[in-house]
């Protein structure tokens, strides 16, 4: 198991952040990470940005009645004292239009904007660019 991009803040712990590399000329990449809410209130991820991509969206891949589809989520809710894993085939980040070449084993930055009871906070994490991995 890879373990990368560990960051923690008062409410959130980020772990195992990675971006799947793709062949040259690719415009769309996917990203994954584990987000643990260590606070006793629910937290809402409002948006995610990256230094390496023009746009980041939160998506969910799902298979329903044998049909594979992707759904865009406006926000991501993480209930108190729980962990949400973004992983292949499930919740993931859709990273669009790279600002620079995304190379294997490089790092890209993910910037997470989340809402607590008081205000919007920001947490950053490095994500490792990897080619394989399916869990």
């Amino acid at each position, binding site marked *: 198991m890879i373990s990368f991009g560990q960051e923690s803040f008062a409410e959130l712990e980020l772990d195992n952040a990675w971006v799947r590399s*793709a062949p040259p000329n690719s415009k*769309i990449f996917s990203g994954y990470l584990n987000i643990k809410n260590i606070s006793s209130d629910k937290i809402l991820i409002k948006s995610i940005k990256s230094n390496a991509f023009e746009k980041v969206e939160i998506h969910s891949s799902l*298979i329903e009645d044998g*049909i594979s589809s992707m759904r865009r989520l406006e926000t991501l809710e993480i209930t108190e004292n729980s962990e949400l894993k973004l992983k292949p085939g499930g919740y993931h980040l859709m990273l669009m239009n790279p600002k620079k070449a995304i190379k294997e084993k490089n790092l890209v930055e993910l910037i997470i904007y989340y809402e607590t009871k008081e205000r919007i906070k920001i947490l950053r994490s490095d994500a490792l660019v990897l080619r394989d991995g*399916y869990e």
Partner: protein
Amino acid sequence: MNKRNIIFILLILTGIAGFFTYFQSLPSLLEKKPTLVTGKILTRPMEIDNFELIDQNNKAFNNKSLEGGWTVLFFGYTNCPDVCPTTIYKLAEVKNELKEDLPSTTLNTVLVTLDPDRDSADRLDEYIGYFDDGMLGVTGTYENIQSFTSSLSVFYQRINKEDGYDFNHTASIFIFDKDGSLFATMSPANTIDELREDFYTILNNF
């Protein structure tokens, strides 16, 4: 003991022996086809309609291409960043393990694109070469892809978005036997252990 009694006893013994033989063979008479964890083996392999597509090397991909070995085929598109590479890696890993355990078995893996507008043979070459160069990437004209998908009852629908488009599509993995007939279907949503188990069930029993 007279002769008649001996014959009578022999007859009974023969009967008992016959009875045992019958019951011993009974399980194999009742035995059904092995079943899959992640999908279904068809009651009878199904021949599919003629199709004409091309692979990433601009070589014809048609019914003949399915013959000679087992083929694992699924549908996708190269602008799908999550599920497609994940399925490619799962299948590549199973394929590599099978190559070691069952070296005499040929298992070909194929991705057929649903997005011929963006997925030319060149783009597929780049994409497939990046993730698993032992795999075939297949494209074709819009009409030919449509007729191939409909012969397998594959559903797909283009979903337009602000910037670009995606597809909703049938998720199944299709398994073709050595004659090129559709043999089984599986679901890619399952774990690699379940997929592996199903491939072994098929390749060890048929």
